[in-house]
């Protein structure tokens, strides 16, 4: 079990505290391909941030790959996150002062003293996989939006992380690019058996995932495997 949440809630502090998530029970196994859908403001990003340990739950228990997040110190959590979770956001968030290759190597550099030769080989393989190997020495700002998002995916995959969390990864792309970026994630999943959890507004994209979790007002209201898309199967 990669993700195991029991009774998880998240209350944001503020003048008026806001309960953004409540009573979330969620189990995700290694190798799943999950979509999270819901209205704007329903709590999708909040859930994804909790899963990715960027934030901590205010109630309930959360085990990530068996580690009880509530029991782990901040610095341990940072390390754990670096080992287990890769993020893809709506905006690529590549570091603009670095080249494409350097950006893909960044997760290694950020957690180690120096990326090894094997790391570079892995990064190049990933860049080839996402189809931007030819741009490896360009600055991250010098490639197209679709390419940037592909690089961001390669970066998230770097180090063979078991869990990739994508928050509206295609939200900022045109439909052609959306389709191909999603395709890419799907293919990577099929090849590497990496777990993907993808927040999306796009029902067509959600429909191509293996499991769809629907959130309304901070609660999981629906959680079901994909209904067979084609009547043939």
């Amino acid at each position, binding site marked *: 079990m990669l993700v195991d949440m029991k009774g998880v809630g998240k209350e944001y502090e503020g003048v008026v505290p806001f309960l953004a998530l409540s009573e979330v029970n969620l189990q995700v196994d290694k190798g799943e391909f999950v979509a999270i859908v819901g209205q704007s403001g329903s709590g999708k990003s909040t859930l994804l941030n909790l899963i990715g340990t960027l934030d901590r739950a205010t109630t309930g228990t959360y085990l990530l790959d068996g580690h009880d997040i509530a029991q782990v110190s901040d610095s341990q959590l940072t390390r*754990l996150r*670096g080992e287990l979770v890769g993020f893809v956001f709506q905006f690529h968030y590549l570091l603009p*002062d670095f080249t494409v290759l350097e950006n893909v190597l960044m997760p290694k550099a950020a957690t180690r003293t120096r990326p090894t030769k094997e790391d570079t080989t892995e990064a190049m393989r990933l860049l080839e996989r996402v189809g931007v190997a030819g741009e490896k020495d360009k600055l991250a700002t010098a490639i197209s939006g679709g390419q940037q998002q592909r690089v961001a995916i390669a970066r998230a995959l770097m180090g063979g992380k078991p869990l990739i969390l994508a928050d509206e990864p295609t939200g900022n792309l045109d439909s052609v690019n959306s389709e191909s970026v999603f395709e890419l994630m799907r293919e990577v999943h099929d090849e590497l058996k990496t777990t993907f959890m993808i927040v999306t507004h796009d029902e067509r994209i959600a429909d191509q995932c293996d499991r769809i979790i629907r959130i309304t007002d901070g609660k999981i209201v629906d959680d079901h495997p994909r209904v067979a898309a084609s009547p043939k199967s």
Partner: protein
Amino acid sequence: MLFAIKIGFRYFQSGGSQTRLTVISVAFGVTVYLFITSLMFGLQNGLINTTIGNSSQITVEPLEESARILPIAGKLNLSTVQPFNEREVTLKGYVGLLPRLDAIKGVTAVSPVASGAGFAVRGGQTRPITIIGIEEDRGTQIFDLRYVMSSGRLDLGGQGAAIGIELARLLGLKVGDKLKVSSSKGVDQVFAVNGIFDAGNINVNERSFYVSLMNGQRLNDMVGAVSRIELKVAEPLALDDVVDEVRGVTGLKVQSWRDVNKELLSGLSAQSQTTTIIRVFTMILVATGVASVLIVSVMQRSREIGILKSMGASTRRLQGIFITLGTLVGVSGALTGVGFGGTMVAILASIPGTSPLRPGYALPIELNFRFVFEAFAVAAGVGAMAAILPARRAALMNPVDVIRLG
């Protein structure tokens, strides 16, 4: 840490005009710092040199005895208290003291002096003088008359004398002329002017009358004795230990230049304080510059910081990025400043006629390796320090916030 340094470096390179401006302002601060410290240093050295460089730094004199009541036939008679001026005391055992003083560590010159008042007489003219009897080779180690000879040469042998240029003018003397000297002890002697010197001091030029030690002793009625022993030391600014040792060796009255130059010393310490104030302000200039560029940089890069954090970059590494950035701004500012300030100091030191102390000389500005190092270390250090707070702020930022606010 390599990661932090690498990213900090890249941020520095792509820092844009804000970073460049800060580097310039740090450079400016360092330039001012170098200029001021070099000038103060040069001025101090100049002052110290003119004040004590050519004179005795430690002087050994006989103990001033308290007035004695002369016993007359076993009875005390208050009317026979010996008056002060009749008891002029001299150093009789000086010959034995010289090698012992020579042997003291830190003492660079030892010169016995037999001096006293007198008159120089030529034609109808009479001028009051100070007769100074020295051993030529020892005396020149205290004040090298040979370097200030404006005509003739230093030769005190036989009836030879060296006189100040002003005295020569007042009495109309040239090299080779003869004149008569009468001492206050009533001894007369004829001297030949072998050299005329310009000591750069009107008093000395008008009064000093250098003769051999032997002649000085004879004229001043102190054969076999001297009136004082003059010493020079290797470290005139730190001579307390030497003074103590000289006191121990001689058991006599020992005075250092500090005892007689209180004003100079307080002037020097006022200068040092000014320098300190300027140093502090320079540091503040550097610190605020670096801090401002870092605060802006942290704000601009908050999203990147959040992303790095989401990748598992530790707080220490993230802090390291901005401390590297601050250090780089400080160091490159310091390099520019040292280059610029150093050149400026070198140029100023080579323009004659700018000195406020000695007409015709260059500004007494001296670049010292210590200042360069200090300015450099301060700029780099303050740069790194000023980075700490913004760096901490960066590292503690919540990645969720920056990502959410996209």
